């Protein structure tokens, strides 16, 4: 065999496809953060911008499991809600400082994701989706039935964060611009973390499992354990979105745990494109923008958004961002 001649390392240019798409991938985190910096000035309201941040984080985290590991969970509202409730309860009922409450929300969401993931990742296909749905509904009913903790049907109130102290500065958290940029720091961290995970050896392992579970197992990957880790990481990032939501609204609606919220996360992710890093964020942006605009015109805005969603799934299955990447940028 003439191994020496051909197997010499290729120049970097021959290995990696160059071009705009490669640049977009390589600098996806700084570019995303740049987009987040200007976002509030492009949208009709700062409150909408904060919502985009929150659901953007949730969907990017969700997509770690859905788009990259290939597992369709219908239960991620549980982690979103858990993050929100734990943060709210910690602040409102225990007087915990906001930053600790955020950490507790994230940790609590992680534990819940580990438990639900542990039970659901043993099953496959439609059974996996159904188990996540059922377990998340169980969590929903726990929230409903423990009103002394969660406020039950009325949701959780009474934990307004007015001021945030960062590096010795008191920041007025009621000011929408301040609020946006404080929460943006969390969103930027989440995006950086997810990008990091996708670039890592673990990121390659989950892609292998999505591509061909049997082959991945034959290659030596512990499929169950890898899925559980992906599930837990994904749920943890959704919990971060939940704590951001709690800080933003100073309120946790019971609906944040409802399966309709899980469904909305799936829809946003598909709309933006599950095959790309930033697609789910774009999906959240477009979905919430449509809700914002159409709900001014008509109370039946969900029909319009639903129709657009169906059109996308049928004709542009790569979603908005995925289609853009494959057709326009190349």
């Amino acid at each position, binding site marked *: 065999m003439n191994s020496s001649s051909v197997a010499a390392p290729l120049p970097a240019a021959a290995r990696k496809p160059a071009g705009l798409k490669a640049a977009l991938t390589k600098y996806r985190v700084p570019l995303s953060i740049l987009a987040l910096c200007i976002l509030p000035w492009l949208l009709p309201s700062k409150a909408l911008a904060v919502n985009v941040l929150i659901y953007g984080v949730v969907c990017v985290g969700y997509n770690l499991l859905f788009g990259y590991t290939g597992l369709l969970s219908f239960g991620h509202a549980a982690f979103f809600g858990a993050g929100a409730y734990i943060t709210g309860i910690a602040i409102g009922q225990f007087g915990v400082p906001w930053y600790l409450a955020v950490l507790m929300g994230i940790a609590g969401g992680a534990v819940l994701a580990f438990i639900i993931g542990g039970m659901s990742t043993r099953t496959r296909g439609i059974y996996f989706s159904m188990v996540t749905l059922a377990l998340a509904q169980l969590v929903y009913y726990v929230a409903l039935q423990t009103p002394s903790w969660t406020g039950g049907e009325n949701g959780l109130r009474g934990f307004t964060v007015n001021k945030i102290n960062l590096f010795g500065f008191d920041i007025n958290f009621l000011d929408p611009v301040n609020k946006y940029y404080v929460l943006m720091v969390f969103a930027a961290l989440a995006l950086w973390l997810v990008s990091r995970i996708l670039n890592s050896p673990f990121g390659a392992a989950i892609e292998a499992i999505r591509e061909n579970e049997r082959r991945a197992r*034959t290659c030596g990957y512990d499929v169950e354990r890898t899925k559980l880790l992906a599930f837990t990481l994904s749920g943890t990032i959704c919990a971060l979105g939940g704590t951001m939501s709690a800080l933003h609204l100073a309120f946790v609606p019971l609906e944040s745990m409802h399966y309709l919220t899980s469904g909305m996360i799936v829809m946003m992710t598909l709309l933006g494109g599950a095959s790309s890093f930033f697609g789910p964020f774009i999906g959240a942006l477009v979905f919430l923008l449509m809700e914002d605009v159409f709900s001014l015109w008509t109370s039946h805005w969900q029909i319009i958004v639903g129709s657009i969603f169906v059109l996308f799934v049928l004709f542009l299955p790569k979603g908005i961002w995925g289609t853009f990447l494959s057709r326009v940028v190349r």
Partner: protein
Amino acid sequence: MSAPLLAVENVGMKFGGFVALQGVTTEFRPGRVTSIIGPNGAGKSTFFNVLSGVLSPSTGTVRFKGQDLKGTRQHEFVHRGIARSYQITNIFPDLSVHENVRVAAQAGRSRYNIWTNRNRFDELDARADKALESVGLFAKRNETAKFLAHGQQRALEIAIALISGPELLLLDEPTAGMGPEETKDMVALLERLAAERTILLVEHKMKMILGLSDRILVLHHGQLIADGTPHDIQTDPEVRRVYLGQNHGYA
């Protein structure tokens, strides 16, 4: 004589009431190519599935390098030193040819690391390229695996299996669905591989097996009915009886 690499003792496999393997006892020593033949449904793939951890046998034991494999989970087999290919091509269709092999190599090195960049493992890249080269696919490294010709996909799967540096390589009909040209290439590849490791081969193409194998086992209705050199097998009356009248086209 060397110690057996793999020792199979009284292995049986039942699917419900159906007996797919029964009382299979044999040993494989480090060395070249052993082929396993038998009519369709004889239990050849089932036997491989037992040896590679896809199935755990209903009865009996399998020892690899003296260690009982009972309770070993499937993904651990490759780390122990047993790799395999499947009868129906089993690759990562939407990954590039290079990534197919690289991610297989990575399994021996890093599986849960979420912090480093996967491209930092230069050595994996180089090893993947070397494996691709050894199966003649280096020129296709940047192509998406599903766009390769059938024979190339089969070769890719062998590269994936080889990358772990297995002591024992199980190949389930590597030439399945191949024309004469592709088969010739595959035989040449197998001959090169056989020089360096122990190979168990399931095949239907009789001429190929006779030329390639040092030893042949014959399975029939889940039982071993013959074991010997190609010459022994060709002249074995029982084997002739099993194959007689069955038009496999490889007499």
